[in-house]
């Protein structure tokens, strides 16, 4: 169904998008770790003027069990305005929702009734396998199709992982994206500098390396991913690989600057095996080639073995575990989740090479178990994990589950389920919103992984025009 005028949620530039109206609803991926109940998309009211503010107001169960919903994205976004293949009269109406464990991908309509998402298509694992992939992860709406990263190959639990492309209109899997992948084998996240024809990918592990939990021998053997790959977006070939050093295990979330005149971005590293610290690096172009520079170091926090889960007792410390980062649409603030220590940090990255910490909020944590102010007597499990920032940069949402089997290792007495919201001060600083804290039974026994905001958010849209 095409529109007569562009979808009002598409913006030519990041500064235009920063003026977008506040989101009324949030969509949350909820999954049942035991795979007894179906996973679901939960709809949460984010309108402060509403009676049901901060409550789950919609719920759509999936038709299968055991999908393990994780990341998801939109069928179309601001990249529809990109001038080489413009298609601004499509609607941002479908959530593209992969099952990380089942390799199924659901297409879910949220326009007809935004509080009651409706499944309109199911792409079977076999379709993705035909493109050579399984375990779909990140979704980005590209100029010529929907790009899906995948952790594994199409036949067994091994690699290489890579990217498949879905058709914008039919959602059929068009095929493998890469023409020449060089020695790239591990996959995880991807994003791009659209106007420079650069696509960036990061590394986690193959399905065999992650699905039954983090494998200590692989971690200490420095076998998880520690590289970034830079690709020619037009030719679909690997152009350059940068190694951060094999002590930096798991280069996960990629957050390029939104403004296309800037050619840098941030990547979070989960853990250094040398001292359990976590770090954030910036990639940038230096004399034609890409280089990475470490700009944030977050040390581990010493803790008595008695308060640590078995996996961490030999170390006597809690690793911060930076599992997600998110960059505000104006490229000013970088949010860094420390899922292990239970902290959300906020940095002013106006100068990307010299971040300044301007905010910190503690919630949950392996040792801290810091409670939410709305319920100060209940210690929280899990920590700030997936971060989502509203387009205007004023609100930040965090969910607390990392990945089913890994939750169980780091929070063995149960990770729980919660979604918290923070308000951002005009020059930085964050305050937890006491009125907004859906948690526990509100999510019907599921864990919550990622949030998407109605109309788009800071990690959903790509722009082709500078601010």
């Amino acid at each position, binding site marked *: *169904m*095409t*529109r*007569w*005028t*562009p979808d*009002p949620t*598409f*913006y*030519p*530039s990041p500064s*235009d998008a920063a003026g977008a109206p506040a989101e009324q609803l949030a969509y949350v991926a909820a999954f049942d770790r035991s795979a007894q109940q179906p996973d679901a998309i939960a709809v949460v009211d984010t309108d402060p003027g509403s009676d049901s503010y901060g409550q789950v107001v919609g719920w759509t169960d999936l038709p299968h069990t055991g999908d393990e919903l994780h990341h998801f994205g939109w069928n179309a976004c601001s990249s529809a*305005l*990109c*001038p*080489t*293949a*413009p*298609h*601004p*009269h*499509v609607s941002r109406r479908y959530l593209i929702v992969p099952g990380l464990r089942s390799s199924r991908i659901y297409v879910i309509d949220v326009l007809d009734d935004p509080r009651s998402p409706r499944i309109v298509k199911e792409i079977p694992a076999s379709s993705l396998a035909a493109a050579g992939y399984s375990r779909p992860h990140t979704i980005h709406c*590209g*100029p*010529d*199709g929907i790009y899906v990263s995948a952790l594994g190959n199409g036949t067994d639990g091994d690699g290489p992982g890579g990217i498949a492309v879905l058709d*914008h*209109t039919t959602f059929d899997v068009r095929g493998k994206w890469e023409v020449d992948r060089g020695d790239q084998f591990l996959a995880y996240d991807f994003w791009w500098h*659209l*106007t*420079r*024809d650069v696509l960036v990918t990061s590394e986690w592990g193959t399905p065999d390396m992650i699905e039954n939990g983090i494998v200590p021998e692989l971690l200490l053997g420095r076998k998880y991913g520690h590289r970034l790959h830079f690709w020619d*977006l*037009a*030719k679909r070939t690997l152009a350059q690989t940068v190694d951060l050093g094999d002590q930096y295990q798991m280069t996960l979330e990629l957050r390029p600057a939104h403004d*296309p*005149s800037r050619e840098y971005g941030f990547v979070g590293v989960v853990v250094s095996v040398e001292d359990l610290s976590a770090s954030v690096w910036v990639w940038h172009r230096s004399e034609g080639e890409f280089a990475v520079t470490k700009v944030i170091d977050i040390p581990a926090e010493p803790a008595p073995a008695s308060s640590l889960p078995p996996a961490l007792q030999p170390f006597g410390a809690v690793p911060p575990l930076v599992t997600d980062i998110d960059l505000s649409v104006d490229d000013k603030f970088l949010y860094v989740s420390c899922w292990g220590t239970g902290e959300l940090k906020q940095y002013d990255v106006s100068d990307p090479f010299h971040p300044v910490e301007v905010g910190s909020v503690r919630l949950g944590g392996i040792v801290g178990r810091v409670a939410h102010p709305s319920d100060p007597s209940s210690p929280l499990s899990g920590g700030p994990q997936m971060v989502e920032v509203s387009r205007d940069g004023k609100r930040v949402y965090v969910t607390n589950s990392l990945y089913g089997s890994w939750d169980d290792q780091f929070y063995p007495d149960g990770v729980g389920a919660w979604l918290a919201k923070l308000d951002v001060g005009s020059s930085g600083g964050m305050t937890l919103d006491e009125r907004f804290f859906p948690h526990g039974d509100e999510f019907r026994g599921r864990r919550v992984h990622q949030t998407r905001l109605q109309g788009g958010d800071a990690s959903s849209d790509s722009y*082709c*025009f*500078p601010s």
Partner: protein
Amino acid sequence: MSWGQIAALAGLGAFHGLNPAMGWLFAVARGMQERSRTVLLRSLPPIALGHLASVAIVAAVVSATSSIVAANIVGIVGGSVLVAFGLWRLLSERHFRWAGMRLSNTQLIGWSFLMSSAHGAGLMLLPVLATTPMPASEHSGHLASLGPMAALEGVFASGIHTVAMFTAMAICAVLVYEYVGLNILRRAWFNVDKLWAGVMVGAGALTIALTV
């Protein structure tokens, strides 16, 4: 070629030039990326050239054919093609696919050629071309030499069309880049493609009607 036909060719050219998808928006993007109006202005000729090539091929074929076969056959066949293509454009939700924005001038010509061809820009001139009396009809007996001459006439028509296209495109690009800003797209980017497809169906029907 009458003044009316020249005006029609120019009008269609302006219509094509106004469509952001045909190139002025890309020129603006290239200018903004490099923060240079010169880059914007230098992008316009290759885009116009690609458009010209796309249109001229169709125009030359139509004009050459109509100098050799009976005009009403060209009108009916061409008109039917136009109606069919227009209907397909109207009903299909597929859009032109392209990845990559850092193009050399040659690649930019190629991009514009493909973009114009995918939209059937040349086909839209059919009603004008098919109803233009060709020089061939006045001289009999030299059939073999008539085709190329008529083809030249088609190229001439494409040239008029492209000058108008270039002018409209340049005005849009400079206005948006210098004064208006891109946010206007959010309100003013009317779905030209649907209108375009509708015009094609109408033009095809008109061609058939005029030639039968």
